[in-house]
């Protein structure tokens, strides 16, 4: 089963290395990992996507919590949450194809962020499935390069609205 784990960690050198080393040495597989500062500069947020059964996940969570610089770990998959990926994608775009690409970008609520004579760079965010669908649509045009952030996720407020992703 796929789990999204959100860890609050101390913003000190070596935390990422410690966590990725622990996961690797214990044989856990990480599908995605995103790291960034939080509103508190002393703390960073790491979001992992891990695939495994409940026993594996229990161990991943406990082993993470055991790391002294890890402040808090939540498995948010079971809660109502929003997940996002951000992607930059560069696509071959000869003059005759630009309109098609631009229309698809609009449908996916992406943005064209760079235009050159040969290609377009598009920024798009959303759930993994949407990002992957967009990649498939761009494939016929010729994908030059793809960069993705990895998953970030946040638990919804109590009201728990609809995912617009």
């Amino acid at each position, binding site marked *: 089963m796929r789990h999204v784990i959100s860890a609050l960690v101390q913003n000190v*050198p*070596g935390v990422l290395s410690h966590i990725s080393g*622990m996961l690797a040495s214990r044989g856990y597989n990480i599908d995605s990992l995103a790291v960034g500062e939080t509103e508190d500069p002393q703390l960073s947020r790491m979001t992992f996507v891990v695939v495994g059964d409940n*026993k594996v996940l229990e*161990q991943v969570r406990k082993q993470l*919590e055991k*790391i002294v610089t890890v402040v808090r770990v939540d498995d948010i998959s079971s809660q109502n949450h929003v997940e996002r990926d951000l992607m930059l994608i560069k696509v071959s775009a000869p003059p005759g194809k630009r309109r098609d690409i631009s229309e698809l970008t609009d449908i996916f609520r992406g943005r064209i962020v760079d235009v050159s004579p040969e290609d377009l760079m598009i920024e798009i965010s959303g759930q993994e499935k949407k990002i992957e669908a967009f990649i498939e649509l761009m494939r016929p045009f010729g994908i030059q390069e793809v960069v993705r952030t990895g998953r970030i996720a946040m638990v919804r407020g109590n009201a728990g609205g609809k995912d617009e992703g």
Partner: protein
Amino acid sequence: MAAAPSVPQNAPTSGADILVQSLVNHGVDKVFAYPGGASIPLHQALTRFRDRVRVILPRHEQGGGFAAQGYARSTGRIGVCMATSGPGATNLVTPLTDAKLDSVPLLAITGQVGSQVIGTDAFQETPIVEVVRSVTKHHYLVTNVEDVARIMREAFHVAATGRPGPVLIDVPKNISFQQCVPDYNAPMRLPGYKAIQEQAKPEEIEKLAEWIRAAKRPVIYAGGGVVSSGATEELHRLVEKTGIPVTMTMMGLGGFPGDHPLSLDMLGMHGSVYANYAVDNADLLIGLGVRFDDRVTGKVSEFAGRAKVVHVEIDPSEINKIKHADLAICSDLKYVLAELNRIIQPPEDLVEWHRKIAVWKREDPFRYNLDYPGILPQHAIHELYRLTKDRDAYIVTGVGQHQMWTAQYYKFRRPRRWISSSGLATMGFGLPAALGVRAAHPDALVIDVDGDGSLLMNIQEFATAYCEKLPVKVMLLNNMHLGMVVQWEDRFHAANRGHTYLGPIDHPEAIGQGIGVTPQDRYYPDFITVAKGFGWRGRSVVEKKDLAPALKEMLAAEEPYLLQVQVPYQEHVLPMIPAGMTVRDLIKD
């Protein structure tokens, strides 16, 4: 905790002096430290605290690390070792790893090259924090002299609380020289460290009491947590109240008196037949401070297969890691047992269970051939036990057959008297660890029971024993082989010798073609001459009649003393449950 500082509170102080003052503030009286370029300022600072901190100079940093472990394991206090950057630091990796696996509170301080050259592959530069990340409980690279006092506080706190473990602090040379006004009470910054000892809920303890009350065939499986939480008295009381038999892990030996009628001795691969039968037949297995190590469980799915499993453990990550616990209590063990003892009522009737166990004990005690004309290693240990059991001795071991036999034949009555590398099983542990024990207990009888392979791995520590006036004894069971590997070769590899003979390669034993006994002129090295060269006394025995007198001479010696006992290499440690197998595969002979 705060002793009077040796310098005025508000005076600017060097990083090195702050560090050493912090050691003093935390009650450290011995440091095992080997100097080098990057740690010179730390050693200079140590000389200024000579009246409060004794520095013991090992002859190898690994020896220093194991000596600090001997200090820690025998006292329960934090052992401190120190080394320089680069090779000094990497030589501490094995003792740190060993301490992590056996939950030993250790503080390692390493010198580092100056901050300005870190990352440039400078002379004797190793990124030791990166190296030890996965083998320490926590680790620091000091980047600011203002942080030294706080980091020291945090390190002591993390190493000693919860499940104890090793912490490394890497101190760049320029930080040692830089000055600031120290704040020894600076608040710790450990938002992620659950320092509060988790305590069991009353309903969990009530449930455990109910299960015990209802049990017909209960067994207590006691581990290192009993010793490290200081719960031996509580365990003893629980057993007196309930009559539940106790088996111990390697780390748990001494956690319950080995000579008590309800002791089942050690369990697992080389545990007693009766302990393994009892666990297999149990309807309730009460794991106390244990981690279901593979050397204990064999095939996990069949381990304690008829029992409800209770697991009391302070480290949440151990619960359900290997074996599902039907009742898991994440708590300080001493607290659980004290609370349990308030309400516990004994199981209704254990007569039949005790009778069954008594039969197993009678039928399959630990045994060896009493008629063997020479000295069997088991006999030597049994004799050592007989002669020292009333002397509250500290028994340290290397790793291998001699270690298992000591665990089987030496009955420990009190905790922290059995000092042995269990989880990592590091050869070379015995001699330096014994020195650390002796440093912590200057009047105690400290005996390293060692093998020839293990002893040679840190034999340079003979010099430390002599020069630092730490007169330990070594009973060397010399069989000229790596006995435990030989045993596995005999059992599982058609007795084909794969580099397990420790003499010259032109001896027939090197390819497994010896005549069965090692001729006197084939013993190599001459350990007695080596020991004498280091200032030790020594004696070698090969005949049974000479053993007891030689042991008495060793015990009476004032100096460090090596007693070499020449033993055959064909003996196997029995009983044995081969790795990954079950009690039904138990080999008795």
